[in-house]
């Protein structure tokens, strides 16, 4: 179908939903609330800030206390996440599973219409390098990700439509789009079993805790937490009580395992006191714990962490280093400035 059909669809969706989509801001792309549909980017570039704030806001009130603790009467606006890339849909699938029993997440999630976009090869920097690290995105199938509507931009510039849920089919039908492919969700775990690449990375991280790479990274890592901020699968959180005049608000706010006190006990013991421990904790979460618990990858190879790292730590390069043996080669980590 022509681009005009896509434009018409989003115009109609806007009648019922707030639209969030990638927008180019100077040189970079960000998920933004859309006022002008012409702003929306269709290049397939992954927005730098990921989409997680739509599903898991940076701060939300879990409970309010006046005479007793009660859940506030929150209103979750109807929102449409438009043009989510494949890695971000995979990350969303993980969040859906991790927060399956979380009433706040689920109530918000129910009101979000998820629309994906694929544009041939993902447009990321250093694509050749990225693909070595990535999970063969092209081979991944729509059957194993969560979405309502999916658009695939063909080489000719036309669009193919897919529906992945009852809601997606309804929205397309309401818009008189009949020429779409229905995709039956087949679970997050492929038919042949858990992702082999995920399992090999899991065992590599488990056996590489003594690798010298960690000391080298700890030398340069600032523990600034930017990687965890942009990571679509970093869902750690803190709970904080904020005292108001007459009430108390118990909030869930984004946390980062790079920040002080993340694992510190009241008595002072801190299990991630050093930068090396923090780095290992982050890698263990993505590559050991998440696969162990959900049989799903904890990293969707979006490359955002490498892109924002102020000292040029590149997750893909780190895996190359770790796979080179238990002792590792001399440090070859260069800064981004050095690369460009």
């Amino acid at each position, binding site marked *: 179908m022509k681009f005009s059909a896509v434009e018409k669809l989003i115009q109609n969706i806007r009648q019922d939903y707030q639209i969030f989509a990638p927008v180019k801001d100077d040189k970079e792309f960000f998920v933004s609330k859309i006022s002008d549909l012409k702003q929306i980017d269709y290049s397939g570039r992954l927005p730098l800030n990921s989409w997680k704030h739509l599903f898991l806001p940076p701060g939300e009130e879990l409970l309010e206390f006046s005479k007793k*603790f009660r859940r506030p009467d929150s209103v979750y606006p109807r929102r449409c996440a438009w043009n989510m890339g494949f890695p971000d849909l995979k990350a969303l699938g993980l969040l859906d599973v991790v927060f399956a*029993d979380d009433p706040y997440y*689920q109530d918000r999630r129910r009101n979000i219409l998820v629309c994906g976009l694929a544009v041939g090869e993902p447009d990321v920097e250093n694509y050749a390098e990225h693909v070595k690290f990535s999970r063969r995105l092209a081979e991944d199938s729509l059957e194993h990700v969560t979405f309502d509507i999916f658009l695939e931009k063909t080489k000719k510039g036309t669009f193919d439509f897919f529906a992945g849920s009852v809601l997606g089919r309804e929205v397309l039908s309401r818009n008189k789009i009949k020429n779409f492919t229905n995709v039956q969700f087949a679970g997050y775990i492929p038919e042949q079993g858990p992702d082999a690449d995920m399992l090999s990375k899991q065992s590599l991280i488990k056996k590489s805790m003594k690798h010298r790479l960690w000391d080298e990274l700890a030398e340069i890592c600032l523990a600034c937490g930017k990687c965890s901020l942009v990571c679509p699968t970093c869902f750690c959180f803190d709970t904080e009580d904020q005292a108001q005049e007459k009430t108390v608000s118990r909030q869930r706010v984004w946390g980062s395992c790079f920040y002080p006190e993340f*694992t510190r006990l*009241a008595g002072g013991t801190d299990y991630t006191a050093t930068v090396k421990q923090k780095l290992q904790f982050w890698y*263990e979460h993505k590559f*050991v714990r998440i696969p162990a618990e959900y049989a799903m990858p904890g990293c969707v190879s979006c490359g955002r962490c490498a892109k924002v790292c102020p000292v040029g730590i590149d997750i893909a390069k780190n895996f190359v280093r770790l796979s080179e043996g238990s002792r590792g080669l001399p440090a070859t980590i260069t800064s981004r400035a050095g690369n460009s």
Partner: protein
Amino acid sequence: MINPYQPLPVKILSVIQETPDTKIFRLKFLDSVKQKQFYFWQGQFAQVGLPGQGEAPFDISSNSHDSTAYFEVAIRQVGRLTQALHHLHKGDRLYVRAPLGKGWPSTDVLSQKNLLLVGGGCGFLALKSVIEEVSLGYAKKHQVQVFYGCSDEAQVLFKERYQDWQKSGIKLKLIFDKKEPTKKYIQGISCGYGLITKLFETEKVVTHASAFLCGPPVMFKFVIKKLQERGFKDSEIYLSLERRMSCGLGVCQHCAIGDKYVCKDGPVFRYDEVKDYL
């Protein structure tokens, strides 16, 4: 959907100043139906909190057989929340999510039926409920030996229970590592001076036993070495770990170790399951 973050109000039935920095709170849910249905397994914990102060994990230290009437937590004053909790009195309210986590293994599943329980400092709190449990008959059928190390006499917890425990067949030994004891016996229990590992030299250590440990990381290291020297297999040693449990659901990551969550998979682990992560 059940809200797992919803704490329930409990009333403080009594507060006992157990040591200069530790108080024992006996608690009862305001909702009597909830209290009548309340059950925990020894070694499980509770998230205890106050509005404005957040919540923190505490081992449930009472006997699980009394759970439908009340439950107890012993709280040592170390931070902001515990300071606020220490200001509370009988009749006051606090807020609890419990029970959480996985406690000590049932004695039914242990391959070695005798027990050696080793507690260091406030780690002894995590063993209290299991000691109460085995004092109800188990210690007559099987040998139960308890090594309890703390800094000095003033820090000794649960003294008033020692005579009952002894009568039930439990063999308890105390040892202090900061100040030499002024008395030879506390409530009929002999007191030594030195590190807890010294008891492995001076006492006849129970054999064909499973070991339950709770204490600071350094205690684990040296006690496990002693146990291994005596032929304890890694799969016969259980540890209760202290971490910064927050959500209690295995999501927020504050208590993660390796591929596990202390709040959900623990706090009690078999040593061979976690030894790579300690």
